[in-house]
């Protein structure tokens, strides 16, 4: 014990004399925590120094105590805390040298959980009484604020007992604060005061003054600011304080009005946003007296501003103001300030609406729309005042441009009502329904395209309102008639796009009218024969696809489209190939739009067999001479997505898939409609007819897109047949589709022995074909190899390396070298029809990077080993791989590949040139040192490419040269004259794009 106290005395001595700093504190803290002595003993040991006549010595003493307290405030007892607080409160009156340490100590004490009752109040009282916060240093001020925050959190009720004195104390200590970090703390305290119901007493105005003097905040943080305080943060913190209580209203609103006059853009914006924020808290009585002033400022901002942000902030403010005014309950005696405000707005805006040629129409309309969006009452009032005059004007004006403006304004008024408390009241527009509809219909029958488009937007907006269009069914039907007529008669692409959009959104709400009116009409038109132009039929088909969003409509529209396909097949309808394809696209679109309900599911469950049936019929006839468009590869390829989108989602996909599989494997035709097929069909036999074997692409669309939970029946047999077909067939579409289908199935099959042996078998088969140079099916084997490698690569299968190694070795093959090089682009990019995420394939993240890091070395090795004429294949493969990598990976990996890339610039293939240049360009912006040594070569080769016959190569090389100009000056100086001379030629290029790149590059040099 004696040894302890001696030690303690020694420590204290050393610290006070300034020999030890951190160590003394640490030791003391350690011992205290270990319970070797108490805090009181430390105070006793300090005794002499604390009572010394030298302020510095006293300061050091207090500092030690405070530092220790900061570490172990949690271990103190209530009694000790009480004593210490009394001590510290007394020290506040002491010499100014000591004050910082005292405040530190107090801050530590306030964190104690055992703070005795009443001490919070006494600490604050002495703080406010004895020190002048703003004369302290930055860190101490922040300490004081932290003490306040701490106490407000732990002793809220006690502080509230202090009454307005607390607020006064705070106001005094904050007054004049300048540092942004402390301001954030101060705003935090002020927010708590305002929001947590402290008694502001008669100091409301003082508290407001002391915070609002910073409004609007103009703060630009110093460059590389370590504290990371942004203007945004400060603005938000202050806004929360200012808008916190309605009691500030009488001070804040005049301030806002004043600041709105400011020229500073950000000040305006801040004022408007603050106004928006406070209007959502305030009540009508707070706002009432300032309304005229506010309106005058807001009107000016919206009418005269050049900035869109200010305008939208102003509109938002008008909106919330209106909402606030309409929220409050009316007293019978006071006048309705909403009415007063709307009166103001209408008075200033309404007459502008009568002048559709002047530019004030728009701001006025926007202001009025902002008010009417805000509440039901407001919209009622505004609509009653504005709509009649708008409607009347529309009817009296004759110029299209004016009518269009009016219509657009009207649209603005129709829209907002949708969002306001729908269903609660009857729509504001009900009274004007009749006239609005008649305007829209008359505009639809105008010949002006813009007018038509706008009126369709209004129509869409009207349609969104539950009871506007639907109440008398005749209006909807009339609208549908108009739309149908436009589809049939309007050739303008913009109009037809708008029609399709409008029809699509209306069809969602009123399917019945479309079924009864539009679909039959369109159907009739489609089949009316060659009387109408092709474009009309195209539009009809597109419109059918657009309206088919509801199951009931899908049921009506898909048969029509299928019928088109059938008649195209039989040759009765005289449909061209493009039309057939566009029908397929429409079907695909419907399949994508269709919500996954039972009903649509059922429809598409019928669609697939019919498609398959058609294709099969065509295929069977194809062998007997008659040529149906369904046989064309493009049509078949367009059919694939229909099947695949359906199969990817449908609940019934499993059933459909098993039927399709049995069709292909066993020739089971029982589920196809119009059952008139021969019994023995073998679609997967390479044999005689390519028209039959190419149908395998439909199978691919079906089985490869199934969700992974759905099991494909007869998997093993299917795989075997597909393998056979892909290796033996000589028709490109057939064997490629078979290979894709095979790969898609391999990608999804579960890992394990079975899969491994399957891959082994496949690889053996491929190898035997590839290794015999005379084999007629080497291309087929290669295609299969490529797709299977992709399938395995995507799922990180360990055996994928064996396959990709095979691909690498093919790069030096005399026949397949180029194909193999191009194959790498297929390997690295996403394919749309199979092996992607949409088809539920097993695709791992970052497979490209992984492939690159594992294989780049092999590629370089192979390149170095290859004979001269084979090298270009390697370069091409490399550029394909690198091009598909994300930029970041490219940047880190490129320096290693630089020699190869420079070599690639000499390669005669233009694709390689472009891709190499586009890889190089970003690297050149941030040149690694390896590049600088190669500058001579680089400049020479890129300059040579600026005269390439391909435009893309020229552009890419000029960009590279531009990037080169940012190299260190001493490095590029020697080349300057040469580059400038060489760039004179592309300046006179016959392509403008090339010229502009050249001009930019040359100017930089």
């Amino acid at each position, binding site marked *: 014990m004696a040894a302890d106290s001696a030690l303690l005395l020694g420590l204290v001595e050393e610290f006070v004399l300034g020999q030890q700093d951190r160590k003394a504190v640490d030791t003391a803290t350690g011992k205290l925590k270990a319970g070797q002595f108490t805090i009181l003993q430390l105070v006793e040991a300090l005794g002499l120094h604390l009572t010394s006549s030298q302020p510095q010595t006293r300061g050091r003493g207090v500092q030690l105590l405070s530092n220790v307290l900061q570490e172990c405030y949690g271990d103190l007892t209530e009694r000790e805390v009480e004593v210490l607080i009394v001590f510290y409160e007394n020290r506040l009156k002491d010499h100014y040298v000591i004050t910082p340490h005292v405040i530190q100590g107090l801050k530590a004490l306030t964190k104690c959980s055992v703070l005795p009752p009443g001490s919070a109040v006494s600490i604050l009282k002495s703080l406010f009484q004895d020190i002048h916060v703003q004369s302290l240093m930055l860190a101490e001020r922040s300490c004081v604020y932290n003490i306040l925050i701490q106490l407000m959190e732990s002793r809220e009720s006690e502080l509230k007992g202090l009454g307005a004195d607390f607020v006064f104390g705070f106001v005094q200590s904050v007054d004049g604060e300048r540092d942004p970090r402390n301001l954030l703390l101060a705003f935090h305290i002020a927010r708590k005061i305002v929001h947590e119901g402290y008694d502001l007493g008669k100091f409301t105005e003082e508290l407001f003054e002391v915070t609002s003097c910073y409004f609007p905040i103009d703060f630009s943080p110093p460059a590389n600011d370590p504290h990371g305080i942004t203007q945004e943060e400060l603005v938000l913190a202050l806004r929360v304080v200012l808008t916190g209580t309605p009691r500030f209203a009488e001070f804040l609103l005049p301030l806002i009005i004043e600041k709105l006059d400011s020229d500073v853009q950000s000040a305006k914006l801040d004022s408007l946003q603050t106004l928006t924020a406070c209007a959502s808290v305030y009540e009508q009585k707070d706002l009432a007296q300032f309304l005229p002033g506010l309106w005058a400022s807001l009107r000016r901002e919206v009418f005269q501003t050049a900035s869109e942000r200010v305008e939208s902030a102003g509109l938002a403010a008008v909106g919330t103001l209106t909402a606030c005014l309409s929220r409050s309950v009316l007293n019978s005696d006071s006048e309705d300030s909403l009415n007063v405000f709307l009166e103001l707005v209408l008075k200033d805006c309404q007459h502008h609406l009568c002048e559709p040629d002047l530019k004030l129409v728009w701001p006025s309309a926007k202001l009025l729309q902002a008010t009417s969006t805000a509440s039901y009452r407001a919209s009622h009032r505004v609509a009653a005042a504005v709509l009649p005059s708008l409607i009347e004007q529309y009817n009296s004006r004759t110029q299209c441009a004016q009518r269009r403006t009016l219509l657009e304004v009207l649209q603005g008024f129709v829209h907002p009502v949708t969002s306001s408390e729908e269903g609660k009241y009857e729509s504001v527009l009900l009274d004007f329904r009749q006239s609005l509809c008649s305007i829209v219909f008359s505009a639809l029958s105008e010949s002006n395209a813009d007018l038509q488009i706008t009126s369709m937007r209004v129509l869409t907006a009207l349609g969104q309102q539950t009871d506007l269009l639907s109440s008398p069914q005749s209006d909807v039907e009339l609208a549908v008639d108009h739309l149908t007529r436009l589809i049939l008669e309007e050739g303008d692409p913009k109009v037809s796009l708008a029609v399709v959009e409008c029809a699509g959104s209306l069809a969602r709400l009123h399917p019945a009218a479309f079924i009864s009116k539009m679909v039959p009409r369109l159907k009739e038109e489609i089949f009316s024969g060659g009387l109408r132009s092709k474009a009309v039929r195209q539009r009809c088909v597109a419109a059918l696809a657009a309206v088919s969003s509801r199951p009931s409509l899908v049921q009506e529209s898909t048969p029509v489209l299928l019928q088109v396909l059938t008649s195209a097949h039989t040759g009765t309808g005289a449909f061209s190939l493009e039309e057939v394809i566009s029908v397929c696209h429409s079907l695909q679109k419907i399949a994508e739009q269709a919500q996954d309900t039972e009903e649509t599911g059922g429809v598409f469950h019928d669609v697939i067999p019919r498609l398959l049936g058609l294709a099969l019929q065509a295929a069977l006839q194809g062998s007997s001479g008659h040529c149906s468009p369904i046989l064309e590869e493009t049509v078949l390829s367009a059919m694939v997505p229909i099947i695949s989108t359906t199969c990817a989602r449908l609940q019934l996909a499993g059933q459909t898939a098993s039927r399709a599989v049995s069709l292909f494997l066993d020739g089971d035709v029982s589920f196809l409609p119009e059952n008139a097929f021969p019994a023995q069909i073998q679609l997967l036999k390479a044999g005689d007819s390519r028209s039959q074997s190419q149908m395998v692409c439909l199978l691919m669309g079906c089985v490869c897109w199934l969700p992974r939970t759905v099991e494909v029946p007869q998997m093993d047999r299917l795989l075997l047949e597909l393998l056979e077909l892909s290796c033996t067939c000589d028709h490109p579409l057939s064997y490629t589709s078979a290979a894709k289908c095979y790969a898609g199935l391999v990608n999804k099959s579960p890992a394990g022995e079975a899969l491994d042996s399957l891959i082994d078998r496949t690889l053996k088969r491929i190898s035997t074909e590839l290794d015999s140079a005379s084999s007629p099916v080497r291309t087929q084997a290669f295609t299969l190899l490529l797709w299977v490698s992709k399938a395995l690569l995507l799922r990180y299968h360990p055996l994928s390396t064996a396959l990709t190694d095979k691909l690498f070795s093919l790069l030096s093959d005399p026949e397949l070298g180029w194909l193999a090089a191009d194959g790498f682009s297929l390997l690295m990019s996403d394919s749309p029809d199979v092996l992607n995420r949409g088809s539920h394939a097993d695709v791992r993240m970052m497979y490209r990077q992984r492939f690159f890091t594992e294989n780049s070395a092999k590629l370089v090795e192979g390149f170095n080993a290859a004979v001269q004429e084979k090298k270009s294949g390697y370069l091409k493969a490399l550029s394909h791989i690198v091009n598909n990598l994300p930029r970041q990976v490219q940047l880190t990996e490129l320096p290693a590949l630089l020699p190869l890339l420079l070599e690639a610039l000499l390669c005669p293939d233009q694709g390689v040139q472009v891709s190499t240049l586009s890889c190089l360009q970003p690297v050149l912006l941030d040149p690694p040192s390896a590049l600088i040594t190669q500058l001579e070569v680089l400049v020479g080769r890129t300059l040579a490419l600026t005269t390439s016959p391909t435009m893309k190569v020229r552009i890419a090389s000029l960009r590279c040269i531009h990037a080169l100009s940012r190299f260190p000056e001493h490095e590029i100086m020697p080349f300057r004259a040469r580059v400038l001379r060489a760039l004179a030629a592309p300046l006179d290029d016959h392509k*403008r794009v090339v010229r502009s790149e050249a001009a930019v590059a040359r100017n930089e040099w």
Partner: protein
Amino acid sequence: FFNEQARLQTTEDEDEDVADPIDDREIFDILSVSINDPEHPLSLEELNVVEQVRVRVDDQENTVGVEFTPTIPHCSMATLIGLSIKVKLLRSLPERFKIDVHITPGTHTSEDAVNKQLADKERVAAALENSQLLEVVNQCLISNARTS
């Protein structure tokens, strides 16, 4: 002030076989993008010093004529602006073009003197050999190109 919208890319621009003639707009784009007024942080287009209507190009005859309007009638920087325009065009156009830069008639007090200086080949060449002057001209030309 406002900036003209960027020239719309047409499919013709992508087509390898179509030759695009050099037109007013192209010259204007060259000028407006990257010349700064020496006294303002704004480009010449934003200050209306250069306007598209005051640019004349004849691709066949190999001539380019640019009229520029100084911001105020006694702008001391008129010569420098003219020189910058001229240098910019010299650097950005094929050598076959004869470049003529002068002040829009009636917008500057010492119009004739400036025009004479700008038209004098020898003086322009001499000015460009003066490294200090060249530095200033480059200042006008470069700073904006960096940011764009």
